[in-house]
């Protein structure tokens, strides 16, 4: 009897573990534990046993029953885990579909990246109208009366507003800096703001020159700013935007509205400063003028230049975006060509 039970245990366990499906498992369960199952058959033989053997065999039968039930449950759990209604030949290498989504213009993207960086440092974002008078485009920025940029060579004057005194002459703004004076005239110092916008130049266009392009001006005016601190600020903004350390250098540059004035270069990110065609082999790319606002500019904004000073930069957004992606033709930005724009999703 005991041997019978031992061999039933071995056979039963083997069958359960070999069961390939839930249905098969049900069949095995019936064949072992069912009304006509092997164990039931054995139990029917119990009365034939000697009375003294019965408790021990009864115990063994119960143990066997428990073992089989536990094993079947465990096997069933395994089946559940692996259960799938999907045929095995389902192709998982088929490509996914593109979520329908548009994109912001790559210049807007750069602008927002800069906005986020500057705002995190407490800068306001300023915007201003595109048409301005010569008074704000040049006079208030300390441009000498005979500065070449005042002539139609460089500036788009408006028909019917292209002669007369400087407050009467109107143009599409050739740069943003005049707008900064407007900000200072209508806000209380100290100032800390950025000013993105489109500017216009009457130029012959080519891959590097455009008639409409974007500038991004940042200005701090306070009582205790020295220009070297401006460099630190700028470096941290560019490093955030480009996601890595960006070398920045300031060198002498002349712009009527700053004194001292700088050309600010950033290390070429294409070659890492070793020299390549993008940076004309110098390892640096000129991206913005900057400097300390000229005392006359502060005066035209109603500030005392002996009390206030500041730091100013005017980032060429187009050039920065060209640098970011290696774009070689600035005219693509205003082309509205979706084949170009869709690349920046």
């Amino acid at each position: 009897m005991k041997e019978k039970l031992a061999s039933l245990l071995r056979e039963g366990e083997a069958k359960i573990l070999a069961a390939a499906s839930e249905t098969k498992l049900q069949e095995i369960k019936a064949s072992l534990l069912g009304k006509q199952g092997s164990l039931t058959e054995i139990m029917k033989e119990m009365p034939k046993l000697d009375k003294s053997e019965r408790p021990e065999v009864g115990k063994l039968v119960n143990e066997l029953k428990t073992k089989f039930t536990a094993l079947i449950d465990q096997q069933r759990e395994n089946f559940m885990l692996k259960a799938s209604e999907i045929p095995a030949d389902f192709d998982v290498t088929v490509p996914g579909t593109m979520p329908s989504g548009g994109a912001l213009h790559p210049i807007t993207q750069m602008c927002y990246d800069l906005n986020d960086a500057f705002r995190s440092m407490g800068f306001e974002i300023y915007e201003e109208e595109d048409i301005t008078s010569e008074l704000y485009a040049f006079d208030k920025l300390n441009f000498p009366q005979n500065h070449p940029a005042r002539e139609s060579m460089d500036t788009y004057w408006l028909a019917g507003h292209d002669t007369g005194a400087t407050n009467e002459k109107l143009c599409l703004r050739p740069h943003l800096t005049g707008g900064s004076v407007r900000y200072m005239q209508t806000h209380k110092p100290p100032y800390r703001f950025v000013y993105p916008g489109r500017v216009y130049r009457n130029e012959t266009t080519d891959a590097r020159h455009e008639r409409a392009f974007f500038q991004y001006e940042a200005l701090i005016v306070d009582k205790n700013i020295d220009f070297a601190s401006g460099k630190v600020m700028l470096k941290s903004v560019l490093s955030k935007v480009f996601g890595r350390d960006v070398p920045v250098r300031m060198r002498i540059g002349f712009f009527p509205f700053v004194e001292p004035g700088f050309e600010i270069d950033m290390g070429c990110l294409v070659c890492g400063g070793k020299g390549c065609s993008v940076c004309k082999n110098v390892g640096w790319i000129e991206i913005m003028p900057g400097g300390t606002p000229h005392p006359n500019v502060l005066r035209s904004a109603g500030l005392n230049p002996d009390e206030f000073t500041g730091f100013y930069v005017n980032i060429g957004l187009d050039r920065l975006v060209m640098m970011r992606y290696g774009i070689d033709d600035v005219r693509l930005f205003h082309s509205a060509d979706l084949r170009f724009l869709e690349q920046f999703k």
Partner: protein
Amino acid sequence: MKLSLNWIKDYVALPADLDLKKLAYDLTMSTVEVEDVKKLAESFDKILVGVIQEVLPHPNADKLRICKTDIGNGEVKEIVCGGSNLQAGMRVAVACPGAVVRWHGEGEPVVIKNAKLRGVASFGMICASSEIGLADLFPASTESEIIDLSAFDVPAGTPLADALDLNDIILEIDNKSMTNRPDLWGHYGIAREIAALYQLPLKEIPAFDPSGIPAMEIAIQDPQRCNRCIGAEMVNLSVKPSPYQMQCRIWKVGMRPINALVDITNYVMLATGQPTHAYDADQISGNITVRHAGNQEELVLLNDKKLVLTEDDLVIADSEGAVGLAGVMGGAKDSILNTTNRVILEVANFEASGIRRTALRYENRTEASARYEKAIDTDRCDQAVSIAISLFREIYPDLEIKAFTDNYPNQTSRKEIDVPVSWLSHRLGTDFTQEELSGLLGRLGFQVAFSGDLMHVTAPTWRSTGDIAIKDDVMEEIARMYGYENFQGETITTSFSGAINQLDIDLERRIKEYLAFRCGMQEVFTYPWMEDHYIQALSQDTEQMLAISTPPSPTEKYIRSSLLPNLVKAVSENLRYYPEFSIFEGARVFFDKNYHTHPGYDPSESLPEQRKHIGGAFVGDYKKISGLFRESKGVLENMARYVHMESLEFRQVTKPVWADETVWLNIFRGEVQVGEFALLSKKSALAAGIKNSAVMLFEIDEELLQPFTSRTNVFAHLPEYPMIDYDLSMLVDSGITWAQISEVILSKKKPGNFLQSCEFVEEYKGKQIPENKKSVTVRLVIGSSEKTLTSNEIESCAEGVMKILRKKLDAELRSK
């Protein structure tokens, strides 16, 4: 501007081991931007002086010759050449294999290789001047003339660069980086700056001593416009080529040698930055006067331009009339002629802005006017006269100076500025000792004296014509001499003054991000100017449009008062590649009206109306217009919710001129019309070159939108009892609108009725639907907040809706 390093070395002794890269770097960081440093000799690599020993005929070509040419080290090579002036004994330029030339001076550079020419092997080539870039220095009279170098007494095999004094470095300076530095517009000025940077001695140019020379009459009519005029009359001259070294220098920095008399004046300008002019003294009658031109006075310039002058122009005149346009260009009649043997040299200083006005008035900017208009100091005339007269004497040993006059009403005075030292330290973030300050400024020619905290600075004359004017200018000099890289910056600290809260700025960003990211639209940029063609296509009224006085093209003079013409252009252009897409643009538009001042701005300024608009276009197949309409309307209807602003409504009030007769809506915020939304009319689309596509356009005045100060979503309790969707389909007259249907249905929504809301599901016209009818499916939401409804209650609610639809709209219903 190009500079020759050899020429600079005339004035400052540069160290022999000078690192050119460092020189370019230091100048760029501290003075002017050096764009290029070019070793001139590299262009003449593998080009030698050869001596032709024998000229033999070519067996297969009449025009070619075979030249047996000595190229040094005893090597004699056969070179095939088509030159018309080949002769035995002639020194020629031989481009050996590996040299770079340009065929006939045109096209791409070519590397010379050993080759057979008409069956005869040739070692390299004998060059014409244009083929090796020397055409201006050695002009050829015919195309087939090769350079004759016989005048250069060098042995065969001498590298051409050595023979022709071309071992030089050419620095190219960005002119824009020195518009404020008139003192740098010549070799001496740059030499002075280099001497200051490296603390090297600078060669002095002693002034010319005119003692013993009789005076001549030079009158200055308006000392405000002419600060100084020197005249020197010289005789025993002739027109001949200038010495090779002078020609070569002039050529190396980008000018063309002409003849000795003209070359001297150009050389002096390139050396000192001071323009000069030489007149043929035989053509000058009577005394010289610097005066205003007469109104309508005529003058023919050296370049044969005939000018009719104004009284604002300044001329150099003799007793018969103007002989030169002061500071700009000499006259054709009285300047150097082929027969000139007596010269009057003019070295003058003119007021800058007058010269600029004149040069611009006649669009006749010259090397001279470019220098004068930057304001040159009057002392520079002395250097110019000194260098000029020594050159004249060198080239014309028999020369006699017959007369000399220096009429000098206004000397440039040295600018004096007081700079508080404490202010300097504060601004620079660095303290300097008095010795350091005197040292840094002294190198640049400034005189410095201290009294207490004040530093009294006297600028040198060459920096005193406007460049150095205020204490900030002095600070810049100190900073750049100290080196911008040597200042250590500190981080700028923020003071807390409240969070930045800019609702309008944030709203615009949310709108753009909504359109791009949620609605799948692509942002585009277009120019503010529009092509007339698209203005007309959209029937835009140009009455209130502003125009550019010198537009990018004659048909693009108007600047936009609406974003739509340029968006339609973008649609038309993109349709070549994409059948379906949607784009948007945010930009300012302009109106020739409502000129206004702005509080806080200069009250004398008056600006036209300018508004921020946002516009877009949805493009698709014309046959699928209803889908396109719903999709685009959905974008506008849901915008308010996603961008957190007051909601928009759509009504038909005034049809936009460019819109389809039927498919158009005006957009309102409350009672304020903020924009338009419509299908581009067939006529406008065709005029814009759009054939089978439907274009839904919208344009909204962003400034009329009202952002919420915070999010305004409303929370509602989740329903405790089920809400049932109950779909109904009905046939109605095709003229019945959704607005009518929903209004009728919702009239049943009142207390005691279980109808909660209704939604549009679809609309269908076509097969199986009678003509003039349409099938509309709506979804009723039926439920109660108090109990689970029985099916009888639900049916009876739906029945009520159907009944009223039948009654009010004559609808034929079947429940789904």
